[in-house]
């Protein structure tokens, strides 16, 4: 029994299941993040079921168990070179770890696709479009999963955030006025205010601080369990 046909899909992750089959996680607009049993030879799975390729997915099944019937790539992979693929791995890990499974969201799917497109188009030279695309993706992903950042007012006093003030950030609650020698990370009000708006209006200067802030918030939600970062940290330690 067909459950859906020619649904837009991206491969998020795959792992061997039994001989001649794999468990593949897809992101789709109408069904959200789903896990599908693909009964293909490993050779065929390796060849066709690769991440970062826009594709159409057809599944059959009964109950919660879905079987892959057809998978049709639409064009080439979006992330061609290794550096971009490494960033893509990070994006996929965020999707897999932060989004609930089988929760339909066209906005999440569009956000994901736009993120890959932005990463594909980004140049390495400053201004760093990769960082900008990642921060935008992280912010919107947190919004869509009910973990959106409160950037409007101090969570304890309800005073509006002002540009020239320094703040700490408490994930789940929001900014609070920075106290000297508190030993906690400090963010400028200007950064918090900017992050409410569109990425193309972010000044380059706020990017490093935004990265720290989102890293702290994501770590809070994932209890520090983000493996892709280990790869970046390892490369940094080599450099």
């Amino acid at each position: 029994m067909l459950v859906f046909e020619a649904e837009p899909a991206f491969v998020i992750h795959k792992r061997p299941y039994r001989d001649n089959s794999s468990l593949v996680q897809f992101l789709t607009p109408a069904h959200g993040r789903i896990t599908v049993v693909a009964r293909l030879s490993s050779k065929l799975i390796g060849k066709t079921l690769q991440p970062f390729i826009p594709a159409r997915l057809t599944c059959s099944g009964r109950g919660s168990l879905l079987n892959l019937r057809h998978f049709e790539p639409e064009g080439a992979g979006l992330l061609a070179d290794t550096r971009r693929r490494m960033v893509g791995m990070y994006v996929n890990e965020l999707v897999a770890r932060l989004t609930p499974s089988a929760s339909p969201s066209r906005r999440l799917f569009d956000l994901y696709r736009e993120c890959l497109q932005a990463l594909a188009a980004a140049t390495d030279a400053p201004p760093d479009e990769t960082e900008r695309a990642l921060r935008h993706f992280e912010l919107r992903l947190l919004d869509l999963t009910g973990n959106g950042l409160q950037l409007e007012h101090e969570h304890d006093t309800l005073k509006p955030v002002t540009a020239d003030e320094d703040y700490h950030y408490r994930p789940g609650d929001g900014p609070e006025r920075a106290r000297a020698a508190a030993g906690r990370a400090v963010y400028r009000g200007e950064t918090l205010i900017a992050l409410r708006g569109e990425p193309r209006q972010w000044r380059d200067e706020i990017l490093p601080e935004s990265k720290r802030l989102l890293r702290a918030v994501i770590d809070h939600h994932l209890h520090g369990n983000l493996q892709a970062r280990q790869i970046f940290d390892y490369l940094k330690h080599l450099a």
Partner: protein
Amino acid sequence: MANRELLKQLIETFTCLPGVGRKTAQRFVYHLLERDRPGGAALAELLRETVEKVGNCEHCRMFTEHPQCAICRDPGRDRALICVVENPADLMALEANTNYRGLYFVLHGKLSPLDNIGPREIGLDLLEQTLRKNSVRELILATGTTVEGDVTAHVIGELAARCRTKTTRIAQGVPVGGELEYVDASTLAQAFNTRTRVGGDGAQS
């Protein structure tokens, strides 16, 4: 009653093997009981001993019950060549289909965040120690061409560059998205013989 329980448990346990479902497991168990009880006993004994005694080669991480595997102990192998593979099965495929006479390094996986496999899990600390000794002339990357295999090769390439080791990657013939283990013999041999240089700023020429 006790017998029924043992049978059930054994059948269940056999299904931990890849490709072995309940039916196949049942066939295995009935075969051993009906036709080959001594074989079953030998299997049990050898399995127990194997999982107890076989560890990883201290040099290349291949499975072995000795401190070093047979390849690393072989004085006829070129110790200045190291070929990095994802799995023991890849090593066996290269041994069977190429005339490579260097050593190996077995990652036992590839970098894959969602499988919780990072640089430490694939043994890059040990590989770095080896490369730091400056006795390696060429590091050959024979990881697959999946996204993860590609990223793994890149990261190891960076490590080798840092250790001033010349690095090549097997190229031609391995299909995009291919797992090495499933490549046919002649393709694999071809790919191995046409490996190409990777990155390697500052590497020895």
